Each structure stands twice: as C-alpha cells, then as structure tokens.
C-alpha cells in the first residue's frame, strides 16, 4: 500500500470552506494514511466590482519517489528554476447556494453511491499508478478491435445547473478560456483568478504535448455568460507550469498558470479565490464545489455541481461531480465560514470518477509564486 502519503499531512491555506463523511470504500485508504495535520491557507479577495477598470489589453504516485524537480516552475518564455517555500480540523464544507440547484439532492446522492464492490476496489492500483484511469484500465484488461457505434448513449443523470448571475462572487472570478495551441488548433478550458493578474488552470490548458507544447495564446473571459462578457476579455501569451508536466507529462503535475498582461488586472476588480493545502483528513469526504465552462452546453455558459470527495490520493482528488470537456482547470473549492478556498484543479474526466490535481505543498507554493508574478 502507498507509504508515500506523508507529504499530504502538511496543509496550507491562502484565503476561503470543509465537509467530511467517511464511506465504506474510503476506510481502506484511511488505514494507509498516517498524517500529521498541518494546513496552509491563503484567503480570497472578493474584489471591487464598482471600481473602474483600466483598458483591456490584448494580448501521488504510489511508492515511487518523487523528483522534487518535477514541481520546478517553468514558463512559456524561458526555463526557470523556482525555489519552494509553505490548519486543521474535520472535513466540513458547504455547498454553494445556487438558484435551481438542489443541494439536498447532492446530499442524497452521497447516500446513494454505488454499493461497495470488493472487485472494484482500486486503491492499491491508485496507490501504485496514481491515476484511477489506470486502475480501471487494468481491471478491464480488454483488447477490443477499433470500432465505431452510431448509437447514441445515455451518459447518466446530469446534475449541473447553469449559473445565471455570473457577475456575483465567486462566479465572476471563474474564467472561460479559448485556447489557441501551437499547432493552431482551438480548445475550450476554464481557469480561476488567484490574484490580480494570475489565472490558475490545468497544465494541459497551457502546455499541450500533442499540439506543439506551450499554447500560442489564450483568451481569458472572467464571468462570461454566453455572448455577454461583463469584464471584457484579455489575450495572454505568458504561461507557467512545472517540469513534471511539461517534461514528464505526469498527471499528478497537471497544473499551470496564465499571467495576464499588465493592463489586465482582473483580480483587482472581480476578486479572486483563496487556496489551501489541506490534510488528508480534512479532504476525505469533504463537500466541494466545482464550476466551469463546459463544451456540451451553450457556448460560454458556466455550470455548477457539488459533491463529496470520494478518494484522496497523495496528489490527486477523485469525485463524482458532473463535468464535461471544457471544464479542465475549474476550481474545486471548499466553502467554509463564508470563505472559499480552492483545494483542487479539475483536470480529468473518467467513468471511474472525475479528478483534480490536489493542492499539495509544492502546488501551493507554486501558486503563491505565480500569484506574486501577477501582482
């Protein structure tokens, strides 16, 4: 079993909430954890929407030892070495009060999760490979011929609800991304403001290995609501990620940042999220919120869902919150005592559970560093 979970015992915050219920399937993970709660938090800023805005610019992977260099920050302009530098309690979180969203349904869903199935316990696989998809793939062990079916499929009940008041906090801090890759292909993603000019997103939104590497440009649109862009948009060309992603393509290092142009200080006006490196026990069963800009809904609309974290890995968080392509980079946040702290960066969809890059100490430190770059 995974012995390398000590790292998750350290917690950090930089501004914003918690939930905890331990399910049957989670017990065997708990056994493997022997963490010393230590958390770090950086708090959020709710912004000052009334302020005039300047002209817009254009612009855990098992027992395998981790290479600390993997979290070295790297920019789209140059390769730079970045040095690292970093609360406590039960997992207790709230679900955002969203019109038309039945939070009690979310609660009910927690109790109607699929029953424990020993044959599908993947924690050992997760521990070894770090990614639920790998475990699922191994379980399947199927070799099927390439085939295409024209049948439509029912993916399952979609509990996402549309956010209409996108100029309210925290929705206005969540950004629609239109990404132009180095090979000129176009993509949809999501990001969230963490400072005046810093937008955090998935590593694969800023650095696309199979599409030429660093993105050519990304249009960032905070609070977008369809064709309405209440704060305009900015095009950025400066990006950050870490070597574990850019050089090694490691899913546990799939995170990055967009540094907005100097005349595009969105965070000053709309505010930004806090973020936190929480302990394993603070995360296990925590109710978290997730909102982003999916590609299966009307263009440029933001959709929300919430649910408990079902699995906490050394560097990943797994949950059954509904998402779709385009929500990569979305914030996964805890709402507690009215404060919102992002604890994960949504990156992957999977039939076995959607997942996020967990904000661990090195991730926290890099976010802090990137935030400073855009201050």
């Amino acid at each position, binding site marked *: 079993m995974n012995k390398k979970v000590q790292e998750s015992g350290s917690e950090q915050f930089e501004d914003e909430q918690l939930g905890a219920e331990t399910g049957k399937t989670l017990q065997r993970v708990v056994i493997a954890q022997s963490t010393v709660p230590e958390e770090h938090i950086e708090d959020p800023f709710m912004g000052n929407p009334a302020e005039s805005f300047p002209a817009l610019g254009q612009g855990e*992977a098992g027992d395998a030892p981790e290479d600390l260099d993997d979290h070295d920050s790297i920019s789209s302009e140059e390769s730079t070495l970045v040095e690292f530098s970093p609360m406590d309690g039960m997992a207790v979180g709230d679900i955002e009060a969203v019109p038309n969203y039945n939070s009690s349904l979310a609660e009910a869903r927690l109790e109607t999760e699929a029953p424990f199935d020993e044959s599908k316990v993947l924690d050992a696989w997760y521990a070894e*490979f*770090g990614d639920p*998809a*790998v475990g*699922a*793939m191994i379980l*399947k062990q*199927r*070799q*099927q*011929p*390439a*085939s*295409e*079916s*024209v*049948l*439509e*499929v029912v*993916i399952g009940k979609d509990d996402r609800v549309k956010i209409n008041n996108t100029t309210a906090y925290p929705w206005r801090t969540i950004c629609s991304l*239109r990404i132009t890759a180095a090979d*000129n*292909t*176009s*993509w*949809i*993603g999501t990001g969230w403001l963490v400072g005046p000019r810093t937008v955090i997103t*998935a590593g*694969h*939104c800023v650095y696309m*290995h*199979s*599409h030429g590497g660093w993105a050519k440009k990304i249009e960032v649109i905070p609070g977008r609501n369809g064709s309405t862009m209440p704060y305009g948009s900015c095009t950025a060309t400066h990006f950050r990620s870490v070597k574990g992603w850019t050089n*090694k*393509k*490691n*899913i546990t290092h*799939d995170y990055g940042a967009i540094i907005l142009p100097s005349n595009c200080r969105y965070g000053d006006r709309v505010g930004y999220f806090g973020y936190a490196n929480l302990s394993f026990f603070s995360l296990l069963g925590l109710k978290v919120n997730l909102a982003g800009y*999916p*590609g*299966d*809904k*009307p*263009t440029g609309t933001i959709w929300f869902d919430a649910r408990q974290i079902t699995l906490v890995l050394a560097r990943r968080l797994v949950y059954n919150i509904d*998402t*779709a*392509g*385009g*929500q*990569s980079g979305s914030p996964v946040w805890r709402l507690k005592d009215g404060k919102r702290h992002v604890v994960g960066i*949504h*990156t*992957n*969809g*999977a*039939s*076995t559970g*959607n*997942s996020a890059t967990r904000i661990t100490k090195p991730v926290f430190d890099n976010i802090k560093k990137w935030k400073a770059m855009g201050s």
Partner: protein
Amino acid sequence: MNYDKSRSAIKGRVLRNGRPVVDASVSIADGPSHPDIAALTGANGEYAFNDLEPGDYAVQAYIEGDRPAVKRCSVPAGQTAILDFS
C-alpha cells in the same frame, strides 16, 4: 503514472448537411481518464484527441443551438478511431 504508454487517438469531422462545421465543440463524455478539455473544430470541421488511454469512449459534439450528439467507440492501444458527426 504518466501518459507515455501505448497511446490511442480519436479523430473525425463535424458536418451539417454535408458541410464542415467550424467551432463545434467536441469533448469526451465518458471513458477512461482523459483531460477534460473540449476541442473546437477547425476550418474543415476536424478535431482530434491524441494521447488517450486505450478503451471505450463516448464522444459528444455540440453545435450551438442543437442537442449534443453522442457516439461511442472502442480504441485499442496504439490505434486511432475515426468518429464523424454528420
């Protein structure tokens, strides 16, 4: 774990009345773990998802104003599935 295994791919085109649709949003709706990013189709209606785990996938294409169309495919290791929406 990283993505450097025998990778698979899904690609195709989105057409309406036989003509390519530009900026249709194509995403993976279900399957093995995959980046949750959506592709916007190019000038010829084309899209491509590379670097995928082999397995069974559901892919959906969304054209503004329409219901998303969903199709399934199975992609073995190292192979590419062609999935057109028309």
